[in-house]
């Protein structure tokens, strides 16, 4: 089965992220960028499904031209081709506009299964995959920790507080995978060389049938009004064991409702 995986290039989450004080958007220029680690899990999941079912993987991404590096990494991991929608008019797009563009690009691939991370590690809206599903009018299976495809049915496991749910939907479907769903493979060195010659389509907004007025900063329906720094994480509490240490830790965990 042929699978689409959505990926995004983001500022290295290991680095110190900075917001542009006027636009309140994350600064993406002049910083180290990587394929979103959450998307590596998506690529791995897509590759596993394609390998198990004898299909191919198409990577779909929207972003500036240098997002090609993230795409190349996914191709080096084993994906077969890519679609990069890159247009200056897309700068400043909100989650809905992004979803529209991606849905249009996915629609052209003819694939019936889309895999995405649950949320990007930079923007964290977590809305794009569901919006894509809505725009395509497909069901969405979210927060998968495992995926199986049996004939026309996709079945996922979703972690709950007490165990896991098994949820299924008929194709076509959008699936989001959680960070721990699998262990993403290293791109093979041969794969890195092969990625050079894998096809990367670059459809224009016009080809995708997207009205430029509905995307970019102008078309955004969502505005970031203010940003405040997150509170410093408080220092942990050290429990010295004077005989009652275990009890106090148990009580503490109980207040967190983890036990």
């Amino acid at each position, binding site marked *: 089965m042929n699978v689409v995986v959505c990926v995004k290039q983001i500022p290295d989450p290991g680095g110190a992220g900075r917001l542009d004080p006027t636009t309140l958007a994350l600064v993406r220029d002049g910083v180290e960028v990587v394929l979103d680690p959450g998307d590596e899990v998506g690529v791995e999941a897509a590759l596993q499904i394609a390998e198990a079912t004898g299909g191919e993987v198409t990577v779909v991404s929207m972003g500036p031209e240098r997002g090609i*590096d993230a795409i*190349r*990494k996914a191709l*080096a991991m084993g994906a077969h081709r890519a679609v990069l929608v890159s247009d200056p008019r897309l700068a400043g797009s909100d989650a809905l506009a992004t979803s529209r563009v991606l849905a249009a690009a996915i629609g052209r691939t003819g694939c019936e299964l889309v895999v995405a991370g649950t949320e990007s590690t930079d923007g964290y809206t977590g809305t794009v995959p569901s919006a894509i599903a809505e725009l395509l009018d497909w069901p969405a299976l979210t927060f998968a920790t495992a995926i199986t495809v049996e004939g026309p049915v996709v079945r996922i496991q979703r972690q709950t507080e007490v165990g896991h749910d098994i949820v299924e939907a008929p194709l076509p479907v959008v699936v989001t995978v959680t960070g721990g769903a699998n262990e993403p493979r*290293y*791109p*093979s*060195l*041969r*794969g*890195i*060389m092969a*990625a*050079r010659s894998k096809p990367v389509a670059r459809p224009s907004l016009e080809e995708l049938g997207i009205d430029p007025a509905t995307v970019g900063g102008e078309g955004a329906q969502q505005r970031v009004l203010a940003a405040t720094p997150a509170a410093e994480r408080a220092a942990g509490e050290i429990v010295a064991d004077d005989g009652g240490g275990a009890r106090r830790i148990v009580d503490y965990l109980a207040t967190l409702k983890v036990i």
Partner: protein
Amino acid sequence: MDFELSPEQAAIQKTARAFADEVVAPQAAGSDLRSEFPIEVVRQMGRLGFFGLPFPEAIGGVGAGFLAYLLALEEVSRADAAVGITLEAAVSLGIAPLATFGTPDQQSRLLPDLLAGRALWAFGLTEPEAGSDAGGTRTRAARDGDAWVINGEKSFITNAGTELSRGVTLTARTGEPGAGGPPRISALLVERGTSGYEVGPPYRKLGWHASDTRPLVFHDCRVPASNLLGAEGGGFRQFLSVLEGGRVAIAALSVGVAQACLDAALGHARERRQFGRPIARFQMVQAKLADMATQIELARLMVWRAGALIEAGRPAGRFAAMAKLHASEVATACANQAVQIHGGAGFIEDLPVARLYRDVKINEIGEGTSEVQRLVIASHLLGHGGSVTALLEEGPPAR
């Protein structure tokens, strides 16, 4: 001039770095302590394509070029020099001669497994009586009908006795010196398991504990005539050309170890407090760190320079020797200072610096000692084209 890596080189460096940090580094201390060859790491490197990096796709390689191989080797060696030398010996000494001089038949028989890291091939040049003077080879191969019969002994052979070790390219005399000429030395492929091929026990070493080093003994060991690698009598020139790439690779390995020394020293200097402040605030420590960083940068540029020449197929002799000489001496100096910056903790095996210190010295010895590199460079300077024998026999040209 442009020191930027190509997108593929950068991606290979990144992948090698991630692999080195996540897979190679965590096992380094344990494998060293147990003197255990990390076979699973080697297999995984094989599957990822590390062993095929510099070789053309036409013979089954990855086709990434010699520089990409050097970048990967530096990263792996930064995490564990013993894994670094396993890769270096397999690629530069094991596969490279086959890839360069092998017949299509020899290549199709051996390369698929070697390029995939499913098997390792060794290179046997050094002998009990022939080290720096590699032309002094005593091992003999006598022609007997359709076979060569080998007798002799090789010392200090890397990757000679692991579970993956499949055989060795050895140098042997196949003819006696003519009037005043050198002996005819040829290279022969010998597969492990051939009768008369004896793999000795591993040496106990100062460092590189997780790398496999053993003597090999050949006693009436018969190999088919078709196992001759390259031209009969061409062995000497061939291994000189092999050593050129190998020297740059050892230099890259040295840069990796030196970088590990700097990283460890920086970390410790920031954290360790004495006299009420981090020791990184003391100028004497800062000067050590600055000198290490400067020397490493210089060594790395020399590696890239020599590597670029090799990748372009241009003569690299003196640059390869200079890179090997400088990088290996810098690495030893960096290990020395890294231990110094760690104080007593640097002498204790709980931290990696003690291992770095033990692992680093060999870089000034293997694949041509620092003295031999200086001879090679002097030979170039004095008009002997890099030949040590010519330099020693003829001396500096009269003015």
